């Protein structure tokens, strides 16, 4: 049953990506990207990564779509019509895809409990010992905030740096009610 939902979601996403490549109206492309993020959130839920699904739905289908629409309102809404599909990017993409598929041939099949990732002692540490050592039922939160707290500090700093960057780039010209522009110092 899970496999059917999995394949259905993946096939929907494939169809959506093919349309995104060909479409020229940027508004429709941004909306389809929002739907793509929502479908991927559904896929993450099917694969039991509920925290990731939560974040992807909020961030991908919410914030990213809003920011892209704001950008479209400040720039153009149509892509320039392009000629025939260029050959070199298609060749690069096919060769890279072929190499990646060749690389996955030795991977354990999807959902295998004997995969090497589950044999590593770290899995036992996180799954069996963390509820006693840290006392928090959600293993993802305990790993994120306690075992790997330093990485999360780095990530928070990256988010802060992003805000600083946007303030530097866009902090100048603000909209005034009477239409005149004002440059902030």
């Amino acid at each position, binding site marked *: 049953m899970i496999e059917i939902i999995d394949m259905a979601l993946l096939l929907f996403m494939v169809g959506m990506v093919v349309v995104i490549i060909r479409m020229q109206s940027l508004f429709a492309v941004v909306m389809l990207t929002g739907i793509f993020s929502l479908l991927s959130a559904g896929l993450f839920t099917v694969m039991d990564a509920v925290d990731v699904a939560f974040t992807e739905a909020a961030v991908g289908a919410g*914030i990213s779509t809003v920011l892209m629409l704001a950008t479209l309102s400040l720039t153009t809404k149509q892509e320039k019509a392009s000629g025939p599909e260029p050959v070199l990017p298609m060749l690069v993409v096919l060769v890279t895809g072929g190499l990646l598929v060749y690389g996955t041939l030795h991977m354990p099949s999807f959902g295998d409990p004997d995969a090497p990732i589950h044999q590593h002692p770290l899995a036992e540490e996180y799954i069996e010992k963390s509820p006693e050592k840290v006392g*928090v039922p959600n293993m993802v939160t305990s790993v994120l*905030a306690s075992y790997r707290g330093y990485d*999360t500090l780095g990530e928070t700093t990256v988010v802060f740096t*992003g*805000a600083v960057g946007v303030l530097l780039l866009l902090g100048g010209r*603000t909209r005034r009610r009477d239409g005149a522009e004002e440059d902030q110092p």
Partner: protein
Amino acid sequence: MRHHSIPRITSKLLIPYILVFALYVQFHGDFGPGGGFQAGVIFGAAIILFAIIFGLKEAKRVVPPRIAEIGTALGVLLYAGVGVASMLLGGQFLDYSVLAHDPVHGQHLGILLVELGVGITVTCVMITIFFQFAGREKAPE
């Protein structure tokens, strides 16, 4: 967008519940899916919805941009402050076991404060970025 009555009335009903849900996700991140990032994004999304429906000027009265900018730094400061506090109490940087009388309680306290810091930063970052994007005037052609 004030004259569209359906979005206006619906969002007036929904925005308080979105804010309460964001608080729930923040503090129940230990027991179910959730945590600082998700809560911060949901909180920011509620303010963005308010700004879209009721106008940027009203939203800037609710959350002044200076407060949002200060909030981005405050969350990171709280996070690093927990780390320095655990160093001052005798442990290593970000070692939560020394924060309370018992290592497990120390971990709980540490995770709570750290997720709060992350939540505050992500909320204020989302609000700041949206205010900058939406407040920018379109360049003359």
